[in-house]
């Protein structure tokens, strides 16, 4: 099986602050992978390097064999941790916008998911609640037929019902050729959805394994392991 994402001696510094130190990482195709670590461990920095929003200080990162750029952006569908959409757009305009931007955007899929949620697509984004906006954003991202989905904290600020919806959307839109990378610190909620996980701590990868392997070998959940590893 080939890798969708590879990092070699990847390093990122902000001034004197080292955010990522000598990261070596390979993420295979066809998996749902958790990027797990406490606040400030470097999760978002790694994601921004993969999506081309940041440039490495040294080392390499490739997505589908290419350094971040036009080619890699075609195959990455990225959900940032913040709402980045134009609030004055209606949901319909947003669908058109995504369709113009990304050839792999499946408009029918998006409309279908919005309809099931009873979201009126004539409404402007600014009139939607925070939770609904987050769902709309996720629907846009998951309606692309990408090779790598990168979801930065998709379940951060939503209520449990919305969280279930988000997980359900991720599962039901997953296709076995694609990889989904989900960053979060809410591990218990997401553990059963993951194949593999990566622990990141102080800018370094401290563990990469599969959820069921840890459970079989150590007799405890990844959530419990995380609490031990990152005990304050």
């Amino acid at each position, binding site marked *: 099986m080939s890798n969708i994402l590879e990092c070699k001696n990847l390093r990122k510094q902000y001034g004197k602050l080292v955010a990522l130190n000598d990261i070596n990482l390979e993420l295979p195709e066809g998996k*749902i992978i958790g990027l797990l670590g406490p606040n400030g461990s470097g999760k978002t920095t790694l994601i921004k390097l993969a999506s081309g929003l940041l440039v490495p200080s040294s080392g390499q990162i490739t997505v589908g064999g290419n350094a971040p750029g036009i080619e890699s952006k075609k195959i990455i569908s990225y959900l940032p941790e913040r709402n980045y959409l134009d609030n004055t757009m209606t949901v319909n305009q947003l669908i058109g916008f995504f369709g113009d931007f990304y050839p792999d955007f499946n408009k029918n899929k998006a409309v279908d998911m919005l309809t099931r949620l009873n979201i009126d697509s004539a409404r402007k984004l600014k009139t939607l609640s925070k939770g609904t906006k987050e769902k709309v954003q996720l629907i846009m991202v998951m309606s692309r037929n990408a090779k790598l989905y990168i979801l930065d904290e998709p379940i951060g600020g939503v209520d449990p019902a919305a969280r279930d919806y988000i997980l359900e959307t991720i*599962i*039901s839109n997953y296709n076995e050729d694609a990889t989904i990378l989900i960053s979060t610190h809410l591990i218990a909620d997401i553990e*059963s*959805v993951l*194949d593999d996980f990566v622990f990141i701590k102080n800018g370094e990868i401290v563990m990469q394994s599969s959820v069921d392997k840890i459970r079989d070998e150590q007799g*405890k959940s990844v959530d419990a392991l995380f609490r031990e590893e990152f005990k304050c």
Partner: protein
Amino acid sequence: MAWDFESDRSIYSQIIEHFELSILSGELLPGAKLDSVRELASQASVNPNTMQRALSELERIGLVYTQRTNGRFITQDLSAIENARNNFAKKHIIDFLNRMQSLGLNKAQIIDLIEKYYEEDLQ
């Protein structure tokens, strides 16, 4: 509604157990058609790859079979189900016996207690 999973063992083995129990209890009848991997993964709120692996294992042990174009079905082979019932019971009885022995009970005491509470429970 997501299925409940214990945190101390693999989700894969718990999915298999969930199906075994559903089949043995008659909730899933012989010959019944299963939903697609994606639907089942959604219902259970688990990774589709894990669901797929669990279904393959159920197929290997003969509780589930695939019909090329129609999907997956519960076996109609009642002896396979009986076999699974025995294995399931055996596993739980051994677990139970180990726990009773660790409480310091011997075979005769365990059997006495079973008879006592079995009767009480039935009334």
